[in-house]
């Protein structure tokens, strides 16, 4: 923030315009897509003259759509549990510890996050086949879990670095062993980071297309189903499904944002 705003007023107005134009750029497409889901015509396009809820009622009467939602959520939850467990463990190993090969381990930890989507999907597909994992739920859960581990590690390490060493030492001096110290001191301290990372993993998994597409069996996840529908043309049902997915992800994201901010204030 400027201490002397008069110095930069011209810039400020110019930059504010760019900011709000950018806000429009990121919001308008989504708003239009939502509106189109209420249009009383099978034809996707403007203008919209009359409105209907028909597409929503149709979609929610469709058990296949509902089971796809359930399938995607189940994959997200399972893969998140694995990512959190593994990611926290790796973070505890890496944070504040010096050992031979630490840099290499850290680099390898971040690898799945840096490999471009299609390549990561292909590599997982080949590896799954080598391990004998059939395409399907197990394969998707595994790929999502591995892909999301780096994000958990980064978030948990950041939190861990702020843990006062004195607390650990005090617990040790009172005779607690390393495991109990971890469970009673370190873990409770990490809770906000773990919750934040969980939400992030849930969203990453729920939104992921490329890994689910290449590792999936006959049952599609939500993004894969929308993709398949889109390949046979736009339809208002897609708008209804996409809108529900949008509301779900945005609501979870917003809630998590508020939650982590409250947690940080309490710290």
């Amino acid at each position, binding site marked *: *923030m*400027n201490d002397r705003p008069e110095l*930069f007023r011209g810039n400020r107005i110019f*930059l504010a315009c760019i*900011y709000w134009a950018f*806000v429009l*750029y*990121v*919001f*308008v*497409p*989504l708003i*239009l*897509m939502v509106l189109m889901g209420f249009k009383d015509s099978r*034809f996707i*396009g*403007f*203008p919209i003259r009359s409105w209907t809820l028909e597409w929503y009622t149709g979609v929610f009467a469709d058990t296949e759509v509902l089971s796809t939602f359930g399938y995607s959520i189940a994959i997200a939850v399972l893969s998140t549990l694995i990512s959190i467990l*593994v990611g926290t*463990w*790796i973070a505890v*190993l890496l944070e504040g510890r010096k*050992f031979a090969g630490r840099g290499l*381990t850290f680099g*390898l930890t971040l*690898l*799945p996050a840096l*490999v*471009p*989507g*299609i390549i*990561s*999907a*292909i*590599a997982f597909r*080949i590896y799954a*086949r080598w391990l004998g994992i059939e395409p399907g739920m197990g394969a998707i859960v595994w790929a999502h879990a*591995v892909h999301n*581990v780096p994000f958990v590690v980064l978030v948990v390490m950041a939190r861990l670095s702020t843990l006062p060493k004195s607390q650990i030492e005090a617990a040790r001096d*009172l*005779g607690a*062993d*390393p*495991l*109990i110290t971890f*469970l*009673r001191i370190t873990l409770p301290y990490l809770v906000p980071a773990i919750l934040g990372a969980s939400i992030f993993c849930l969203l990453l998994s729920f*939104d*992921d*297309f490329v890994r689910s597409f290449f590792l999936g069996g006959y049952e599609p996840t939500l*993004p894969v189903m929308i993709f398949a529908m889109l*390949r046979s043309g*736009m339809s208002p049902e897609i708008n209804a499904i*996409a809108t529900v*997915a949008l509301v779900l*992800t*945005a609501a979870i*994201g917003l809630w998590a*944002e508020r939650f982590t*901010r409250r947690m940080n204030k309490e710290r």
Partner: protein
Amino acid sequence: MTYDASTRRDGQSAGSTAADRTFWGRLSAWGPYHALMRLTTASPRRQFLILAAFPILWVLTQHLGPMLQMLRVSLTDAYPVAPGVEQSFTLDNYARFFGDSIFWMPFFRTLTFAGVFTFCTLIITYPVAYFLARHVSRKNQMLFLLLLLIPFWVGEIVRTYAIMILLGNTGAVNLALKTLGLIDRPIPFMYTSFSMGVGIVYLTALYMLLPLYSALEKLPQSMNEAAADLGAGAWTRFRRVSLPLTIEGISSGCTLVFLISTGFYATPVLLGGPSTTVFAETIAGFFHVAGDEWPTGAAFATIMFLAALIITTVFQRLMKMLRKGESA
């Protein structure tokens, strides 16, 4: 971070205290648990090995393993191997890439597109990040940032679809232009490199915005004020103060966006056309058909990964040199 088992014993011999009646007290006094702890924490070295074994095993088998397996398959003549057939190693899959323009054209197109789209993302998000970091009060910064975060929680496919609706022949943009009387017939935005660019910038903008924002936020305001007092105009201040001091943010943002852009598959399929086939589509083609094309697909994915890695490494080196040059 070492634990001495003798401390633990002394603690226990202190007799029945309030701690012993809690769950944790009882757990640590429980024979088998106590024995296990003494075994696992006998020496700092053993304690470290027990902590480190699983993470190291995980990153080697789960993070590195798939990449190495992909590399191995790319060097074989058939995968999976039919029973009774000897698998042999070959470089034919790599040779195939250079043999046909149908393969290397999409490859170079992908790298060009990724470069151009990364640059566009940088140009678009830099002023936004600048505004957020320098012109919004601390209190409101989180709110303004949050406003931009919301659309980015929405998935890749949903946002790609939103762009399809925006840019279609009967889409909002064409309708607006028609209403304004600027065009008679709709402009065919869709299935071109333009629609693909709009989509990819839309998907990657946040990965550029956040590194830029954190770099700009650290920049001391006094520098800009000093420059202004010395008579530097807005453009000079940007070029001589803000830009050199945020090179690190630009470098990491561009690297991230470039890597992500090269990896998109669904977005080019949905927003692009026959003239904009990207390498991800070429690679995917080998995996849609069963079996024997996999080694070629693996080789192509390896080529792509190496190219992306080399480009981003060279780019980061250049940016580092640039930064050193500026500060010298």
